[in-house]
């Protein structure tokens, strides 16, 4: 029984790559970079087959607003051929590892004219059917802050302060109650009542916490006293 199962699984594994499983190529969706900096455009693929010696990577570039696509990089037969005539002359470098399915390139010293779409196409013979993947490069003078970062930070800080003040207030009340209790235990009789009244009086000003905490505590203490 087991041998039959093993045999069928081996046969299936042998059969599956015979059918045309497409090669899937992964790059980023969008990349942001500063003028003058370097950027690494990553490209990797997934293929059902082992990496063959004839694996090829090719990168093409289409500037923003243009319809022409030019080839800027090609890796074939174990050799990397970089752009030596086009806009990326002397700025392009191959930093990938074909054996690890990595066909990334490094572009140095970016400029505003490098804004555009970079397309990576990888082929792993006999697995050649696949859709090339594109990554869009945006070059900024200074990196814009992501939407919502500062918003979230301000809201978080204010709400955190609110929670902190509430916690400190209840902690103070709890500690004062405990101090009163320990006074009751140590001194007996009438002295404990005088001690507790004196304690509740100077407690807020003696509070070493922030001034804001003391002010709002006073408000809350007054409302508590009004309650009683």
């Amino acid at each position, binding site marked *: 029984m087991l041998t039959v199962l093993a045999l069928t699984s081996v046969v299936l594994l042998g059969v599956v790559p015979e059918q045309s499983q497409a090669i899937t190529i992964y790059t980023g969706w969008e990349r942001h970079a500063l003028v003058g900096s370097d950027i690494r455009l990553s490209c990797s693929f997934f293929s059902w087959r082992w990496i063959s010696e004839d694996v090829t990577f090719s990168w093409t570039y289409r500037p923003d607003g243009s319809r022409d696509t030019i080839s800027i990089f090609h890796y074939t037969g174990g050799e990397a051929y970089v752009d030596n005539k086009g806009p990326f002359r002397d700025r392009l470098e191959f930093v990938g590892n074909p054996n690890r399915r990595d066909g990334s390139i490094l572009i140095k010293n970016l400029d505003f004219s490098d804004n555009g779409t970079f397309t990576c196409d990888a082929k792993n013979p006999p697995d050649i059917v696949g859709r090339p993947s594109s990554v869009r490069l945006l070059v900024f003078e200074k990196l*814009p*802050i*992501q*939407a*919502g*970062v*500062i*918003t*979230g*930070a*301000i*809201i978080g800080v*204010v*709400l955190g302060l609110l929670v902190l003040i509430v916690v400190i207030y209840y902690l103070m009340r709890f500690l004062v109650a405990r101090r009163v209790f320990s006074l009751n235990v140590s001194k007996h009789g009438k002295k404990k009542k005088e001690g507790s009244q004196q304690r509740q009086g100077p407690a807020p000003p003696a509070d070493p916490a922030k001034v804001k905490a003391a002010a*709002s505590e006073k*408000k*809350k203490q*007054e*409302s508590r006293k*009004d*309650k*009683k």
Partner: protein
Amino acid sequence: MLLLLLGIILLHVAALVLLFVSTIVSVWTSGDSNTSDLWRNCTLYAVGHSCNPASTGEWIQAVQALMILSIIFSCLSLFLFFCQLFTLQKGGRFFLTGAFQILASLFVMSGAIIYTVLSPEWVPEKNTFGYSYILAWVACPLALISGLIYVILRKRE
């Protein structure tokens, strides 16, 4: 007594509704065919609207945060009012409720001031302030008055 209570709650809810509308509807500036801020800029073409997310500058995000905080504090104040209505002793004052409402109005005011001061930077000259901006400025004194009423109000019965 009941009338007074209803009036106070109505005032509070009116300020809250104004805050909500001012924050959610994105019409802080408006021009001939475009509106912008707080969350997105929309342009009206012959075929329809085309909206992009608003600029992500630090100050726009600060105004967004202040408006959201004012809404949160106003809601908390309403909730605290109902809590204190049932737990406060006779003769007590609604300090906490008033404090939160006054804080909410301060947040709206600072948000509107920041927007006023910095809007020439990110809005072209021929645009005017939209109705969301005006609602924010109306909500500020409403919330302030509401908060002050809470502070001087004393609980009866």
